[in-house]
């Protein structure tokens, strides 16, 4: 973050340089916030599918990937192959808002197509089918170089706002503002949808699909809608990821581990509770972010193990929570109808 390697004098630390140090920390906290929001969007999508409707999607990373690549291809300037870079499809230099719509549409329609044959399956088979789907997508992204630039990935992706002179701090704050705005709008819209009679049918499908059918509901249609809308939210998460990280590559960012993290976030936060999904995302990603921050302060012999300590903490936390509070930090609330 531009911090000089030379040890600073007491005067420097106390004087003009302090603001630079503070913005450095804030830039870092900003990074934590917008990455958490990316996870929160994924968690909201999964919560709609599983927390509300009972559809266990194990291919979250796949819909995330579709959104991310759609955005990367949409907003970058034309990138033909050159020496040292294989090039990728487009880009098309489209505005960010249009890329957001395209990413949601792409991930949402693919989710609907995936749902058509699979949401009729029993929960465990749905999980297997969607997990396989996401892995196939990732392998395609690795190998279809002319579209995705393969393992090299797509970069540089322009910042949402270019500052002159460049400022990591201002960039981070812009990203936090975009993420927070999107999250707030989504929270309001999703609350309206899930607390409506429509949302009530989703919960009924989760509780007992046969009984819901016997009450005259076309449960297949509701499952299809929930899966597609959840997929679209994951696509939007991909959009936010691409415009904030400015670099995407298929091997790490869209691996099954992303899917597993989102599961943990929703289980810890509280399935069937929108705020729970957001709390879970900030808490679980917070542990990862903290472990990276603490690495610099950890004693030498702990430096390499701190990553594993975090995994142990997350695992233990999950076990304790499932035993003592299976409904998550924020439990699903009881709806009192008037």
């Amino acid at each position, binding site marked *: 973050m531009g911090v000089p390697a030379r040890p600073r004098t007491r005067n420097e630390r106390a004087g003009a340089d302090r603001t630079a140090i503070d913005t450095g920390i804030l830039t870092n906290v900003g990074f934590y916030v917008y990455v958490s929001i990316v996870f929160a969007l994924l968690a909201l999508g999964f919560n709609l599918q599983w927390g509300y409707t009972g559809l266990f999607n194990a291919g979250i990373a796949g819909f995330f990937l579709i959104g991310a690549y759609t955005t990367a291809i949409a907003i970058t300037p034309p990138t033909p192959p050159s020496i040292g870079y294989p090039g990728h499809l487009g880009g098309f230099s489209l505005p960010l808002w249009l890329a957001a719509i395209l990413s949601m549409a792409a991930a949402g329609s693919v989710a609907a197509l995936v749902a058509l044959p699979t949401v009729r399956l029993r929960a465990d088979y749905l999980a297997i089918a969607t997990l396989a789907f996401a892995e196939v997508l990732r392998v395609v992204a690795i190998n279809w170089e002319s579209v995705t630039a393969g393992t090299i990935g797509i970069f540089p992706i322009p910042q949402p706002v270019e500052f002159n002179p460049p400022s990591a701090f201002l960039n981070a704050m812009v990203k936090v503002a975009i993420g927070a705005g999107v999250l707030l709008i989504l929270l309001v819209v999703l609350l*309206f*949808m899930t607390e*409506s*009679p*429509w949302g*009530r*049918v989703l*919960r*009924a499908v989760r*509780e*007992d699909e*046969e*009984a*819901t*059918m*016997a*009450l*005259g*509901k*076309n*449960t297949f249609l509701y499952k299809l*809608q929930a899966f597609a809308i959840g997929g679209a939210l994951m696509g939007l998460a991909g959009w936010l990821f691409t415009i904030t990280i400015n670099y995407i590559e298929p091997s790490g960012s869209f691996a099954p581990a992303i899917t597993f993290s989102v599961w943990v976030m929703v289980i810890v936060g509280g399935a*069937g509770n929108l705020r729970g999904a957001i709390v879970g995302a900030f808490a679980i990603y917070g542990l990862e972010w903290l472990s990276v921050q603490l690495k610099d302060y950890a004693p030498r012999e702990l430096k390499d193990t701190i990553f594993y300590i975090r995994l142990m903490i997350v695992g233990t936390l999950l076990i304790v929570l499932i035993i003592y509070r299976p409904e998550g930090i924020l439990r*699903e609330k*009881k*709806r*009192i*109808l*008037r």
Partner: protein
Amino acid sequence: MTERSEAPLILRVQDVRKSFGGIRAVDDCSLAVSPQSVTGLIGPNGAGKSTLFNLIAGLYRPDGGEIWFGDTRIDGLPPFEIVHLGLTKTWQIPHELRNMTVLENLVLGSKHNAGEHLTNLFFQPGLVRRDEKRWRQRAREVLRLTQLDALANEHAKALSGGQKKLLELARALMTDPTLVLLDEPVAGVNPTLAGNLMDLIEKLRRDGRTFFLIEHDMNVVMNRCDRVIVMHQGRTIADGTPASVKANPVVIESYLGG
């Protein structure tokens, strides 16, 4: 069949078959139910009674045969369309929506509720509000009728076994059915509540509804049903008034015992 064809039938099952693996659960089964009756379906365990109910309600698809509801052929229709025609069922083991309140369980029985369609939420908010209000009122009426009103805002999972049976019936009534299939409505229900439940069914029948029920409680079958159909090994072996069925030697041998 000749004497029955004169009266219009509300339900007609003709040569219906259903196998699971090598087991023929329902085997060329034929029967009929008259409108505004309380018809009992009895038979030993494994006779195919519950399977037949699932076939009629559309939860299973028959391997062969025809099922008619009034003038509409319903085999092969999806369950939700059959409910919209006015035929619904309850379960032997209550299928309550556990983590939803009793009132929510009932409101879910609403038919063509505008707010259950995603587009209406955004484009017809006024209609959604009016519809929802109307259905909640109706749900409260049904709760009073079934004496569940004190439990309206309890989670369904908090109810006792007997209360869950009442909830099943109440929820079925929300769909405004002309024919209700009840799978063991009083099993596990204490005698007083069972009596109340059967009184309610009798009252609803006088209002024009038809009940077709599976029951092992012979007291209920003999005193409350107009007609009794007996199933054994996937087919009907007897059909008549409770008294005639009780005296039928085939029924005594296969089900009632000496």
